[in-house]
């Protein structure tokens, strides 16, 4: 293995985990010490403090549930520790995940003899930033020096697309039903490049829901019925659920299964015997509504992309529950599509992660194993290329670089022409690859006298195959401002890694040495303009006890937000006035979901829902009523989870929290739709205003583009899509003001407007002085000075306290 690369991918799943490796040509799944391709994500700590992972630990779920933890992935990022009373230990979810990762890392070492240090780990598409940070931490604890995170649907898509022999195009769907989440992704491959056309999902639908409906069905047939919201029934239900899970797997092949427990269950102090029969027909009847829920998501996604059933090239199934015949049958029937064969639904994600590790040039082995000999050269080339003739760019380090260089492919059938090396040691060449193969090229450098020069590294390897663009950012990221709005830094879909800097101004003074004086820069994620409708994901605080000097109101703050390929966030603020940088971002934990706070949140949402419903009925908004019915159903589901949370199920509590967050987001859309008449009239006046401004002052390109935007606004109006209409209106405003700002009158107009508010400014004498200077600038026609004056005046206008509250107490504008 020493010569070929070793790319490692890990699927750290809720129920099961798997690892795969890619050597540049073949992907193989790593088997664990028991010979299995998947390892249950279960950890047990015995009374001596010894840790067991996987199948061996899973056997103890029933016998010793208190010291055996499963499904801790759902608690990642919550900071909530899990008790192991026998050993008197408490472990955080990331520590438990680290144990699973250590076990997989050991399996790789046992099988391949390499202690890998770098890998790609998959995470759910809608993982929040704290959850991603916890996953990275787990990898660090497991001994990985560097990891990249990859969204699960992209991983499965990459693996499914890689194996596709035909590049015949067409759109296809990845149906990924995991232990706890469902993801649907529409993809297309063209010219060897995989593109995610669209993605949708249900964060609250997975294999465990299938297990629960079967468990509840079994429970209902017992002499004494155990209930999910009674903490005393937890152990009985757990035993029943494990039996339900086994029966479900058995019924994937047979027609009947016997559910028998060796020990009677104890429910309310009574022994309850379990000896029930379950048929495939029964579980199909029970599970059909759940499968249909997943199919609704698929149909919605297809419709949004102009596809109807029968138009998909194929469907790839991913995840353990898709092994159930009912899932395969209904998916094929409802989507009128062929199910792609030859993919292992249990390990496809890990395989995709391994392939992606190659794309990201993340060789799993330790950085350097061989000593450097010869002239050192830095090389830049794609580790995986869909292009058959990619470029190789290089630079020799130090003085006296060789004169010429050529690349020789290791099969001897191709070599590049000899290229000159520039005086600064740089060169650019093109290489020819073999389709779907890993090609190694030897670097042959020669000195001026034609003598061969040893080069380090002596060779490079490029794999020809399917590639995927940079991962897109799943949710828009920005900074909440003191006026309650959001300054968008990175839009949804922006390719990662990404970095952006904006200059803000402080709205209050940070007094040097004062602990109470803290300027807050809240970082939020979400698609809404208003900060309070987005999620706070971190804060950057500039405290009085940390500043070199007092930072007065109106000081400039340059904020930079950066996300790496895995979506990990870092931010820094530079305050030029005191020449100091602040970098510590307080990463928020996923909020703790106490049953009481969930009760209050659901009560509030129900009230809002009732208001919206009354309104929708009054205005005859049929579509809206349908949407609200769907929300009502989601709330009822969340209610069941909250019941379970009262029974001590922390996982159900987190599920409920996320469901409520989701409903809250959809409700915000509904509120927006409620403003429809106002929005529509605003859109009309904007269209008139923008047409006249851009017509008078805009460039040709701006006029053409405005036509496009106006057409899109019209479409959104026709479809009554409030969010899309708002988005297009933003574009129209940008075009209009870009044209307006080019005119000389623009700054005079801004000046008049700002001068009329002079009495509200925080520093009246200064503002009055600025107004006097501004008047002179107007008289002289000095637009440049006027622009500066207007900017200063704006900085002196206060933000109102209500708006600041909505902006997470932001200290910047």
């Amino acid at each position, binding site marked *: 293995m020493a010569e070929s690369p070793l790319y490692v991918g890990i699927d750290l799943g809720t129920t099961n985990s798997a690892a795969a490796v890619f050597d540049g040509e073949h992907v193989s799944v790593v088997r664990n010490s028991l010979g299995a391709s998947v390892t249950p994500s279960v950890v047990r700590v015995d009374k001596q403090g010894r840790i067991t992972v996987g199948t061996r630990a899973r056997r103890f779920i029933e016998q010793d549930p208190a010291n055996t933890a499963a499904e801790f992935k759902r608690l990642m990022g919550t900071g909530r520790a899990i008790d192991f009373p026998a050993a008197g230990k408490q472990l955080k979810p990331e520590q438990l995940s680290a144990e699973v990762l250590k076990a997989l890392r050991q399996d790789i070492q046992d099988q391949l003899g390499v202690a890998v240090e770098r890998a790609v780990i998959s995470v759910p598409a809608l993982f929040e930033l704290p959850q991603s940070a916890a996953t990275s931490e787990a990898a660090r604890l497991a001994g990985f020096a560097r990891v990249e995170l990859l969204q699960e649907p992209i991983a499965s898509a990459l693996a499914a697309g890689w194996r596709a022999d035909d590049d015949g195009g067409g759109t296809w769907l990845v149906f990924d039903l995991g232990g706890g989440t469902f993801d649907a992704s529409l993809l297309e491959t*063209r010219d060897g*490049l995989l593109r995610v056309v669209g993605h949708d999902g249900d964060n609250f639908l997975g294999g465990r829901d299938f297990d629960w409906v079967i468990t509840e069905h079994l429970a209902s047939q017992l002499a004494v019925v155990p209930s999910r919201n009674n903490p005393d029934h937890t152990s009985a239900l757990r035993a029943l659920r494990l039996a339900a899970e086994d029966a479900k797997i058995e019924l994937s092949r047979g027609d009947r299964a016997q559910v028998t427990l060796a020990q009677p269950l104890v429910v309310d102090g009574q022994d309850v015997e379990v000896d029930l029969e379950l048929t495939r027909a029964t579980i199909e009847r029970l599970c059909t509504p759940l499968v249909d829920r997943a199919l609704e998501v698929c149909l919605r996604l297809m419709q949004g992309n102009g596809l109807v059933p029968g138009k998909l090239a194929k469907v790839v199934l991913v995840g353990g529950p898709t092994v159930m015949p009912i899932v395969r049958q209904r998916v094929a029937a409802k989507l009128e599509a062929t199910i792609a064969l030859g993919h292992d639904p249990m390990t496809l994600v890990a395989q995709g992660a391994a392939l992606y590790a190659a794309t990201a040039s993340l060789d799993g082995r330790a950085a350097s194993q061989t000593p450097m000999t010869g002239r050192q050269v830095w090389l830049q080339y794609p580790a995986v290329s869909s292009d058959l*003739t990619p470029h190789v760019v290089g630079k020799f380090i130090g003085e006296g670089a060789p004169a010429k260089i050529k690349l020789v492919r290791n099969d001897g059938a191709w070599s590049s022409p000899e290229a000159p090396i520039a005086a600064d040691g740089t060169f650019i060449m093109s290489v020819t690859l073999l389709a779907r193969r890993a090609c190694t090229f030897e670097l042959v450098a020669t000195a001026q006298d034609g003598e061969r020069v040893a080069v380090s590294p002596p060779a490079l390897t490029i794999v020809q195959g399917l590639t995927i*663009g940079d991962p897109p950012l799943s949710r828009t990221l920005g900074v909440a401002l003191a006026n309650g709005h959001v300054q968008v830094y990175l839009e949804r879909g922006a390719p990662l890694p990404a970095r952006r800097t904006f*200059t803000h101004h402080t709205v209050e003074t940070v007094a040097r040495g004062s602990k109470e004086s803290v300027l807050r820069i809240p970082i939020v994620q979400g698609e809404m303009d208003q900060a309070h409708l987005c999620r706070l994901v971190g804060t950057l605080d500039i405290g009085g006890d940390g500043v070199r000097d007092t930072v007065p109101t109106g000081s400039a703050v340059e904020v930079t937000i950066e996300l790496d390929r895995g979506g990990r966030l870092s931010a820094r603020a530079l305050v030029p006035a005191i020449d100091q940088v602040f970098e510590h971002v307080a990463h928020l934990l996923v909020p703790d979901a106490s049953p009481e706070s969930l009760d209050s949140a659901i009560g509030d949402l129900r009230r809002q829902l009732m208001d919206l419903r009354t309104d929708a009925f009054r205005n005859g908004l049929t579509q809206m009523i349908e949407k609200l019915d769907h929300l009502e159903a989601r709330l009822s589901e969340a209610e069941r989870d909250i019941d379970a949370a009262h029974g001590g199920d922390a996982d159900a509590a987190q599920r409920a929290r996320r469901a409520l967050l989701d409903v809250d987001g959809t409700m915000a859309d509904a509120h927006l739709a409620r403003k429809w008449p106002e929005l529509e009239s605003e859109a009309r006046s904007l269209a008139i205003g923008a047409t006249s401004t851009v017509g008078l002052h805009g460039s040709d*390109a701006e006029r053409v*583009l405005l036509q496009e935007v106006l057409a899109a606004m019209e479409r959104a109006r026709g479809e009554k899509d409030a969010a899309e209409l708002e988005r297009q209106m933003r574009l129209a405003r940008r075009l209009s003001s870009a044209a307006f700002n080019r005119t000389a009158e623009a700054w005079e107009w801004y000046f008049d407007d700002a001068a009329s508010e002079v009495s509200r400014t925080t520093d009246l004498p200064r503002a009055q002085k600025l107004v006097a200077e501004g008047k002179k600038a107007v008289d002289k026609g000095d637009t440049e000075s006027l622009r500066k004056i207007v900017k200063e005046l704006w900085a002196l206008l206060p933000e109102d306290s209500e708006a600041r509250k909505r902006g997470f107490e932001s200290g910047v*504008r």
Partner: protein
Amino acid sequence: MTTLAENPFLVLGLSVDTKRIEIEREAQKLLGMLELGFAAVKSYATPLGPRERTAEAVRAAVAALRDPYQRLVAEVWARHAPAPIETAPQVAPAPPAETHPGARRTFGWRP
């Protein structure tokens, strides 16, 4: 929507009829050259004068051109844009709009 100076075709230094695979190839080359500090690619010409070419801008440009709709918009802009200026204009270009948060607010967009 990007500004005139951030047009993906300008960032990559390509014409609007460049094929997709050629765009990918050029972007990959530019990223490699930027990483190794090739002086020749550190800036690109725009109608508003030269702009700094960063790895982020190249990645964003190639991502935009992969999306059929965004490519169409970029083509419209590029076809109608005035000729790029290779050297810096005598008068400094206007600072980017984000340094005037109030202006954005006045127009009602995200400040």
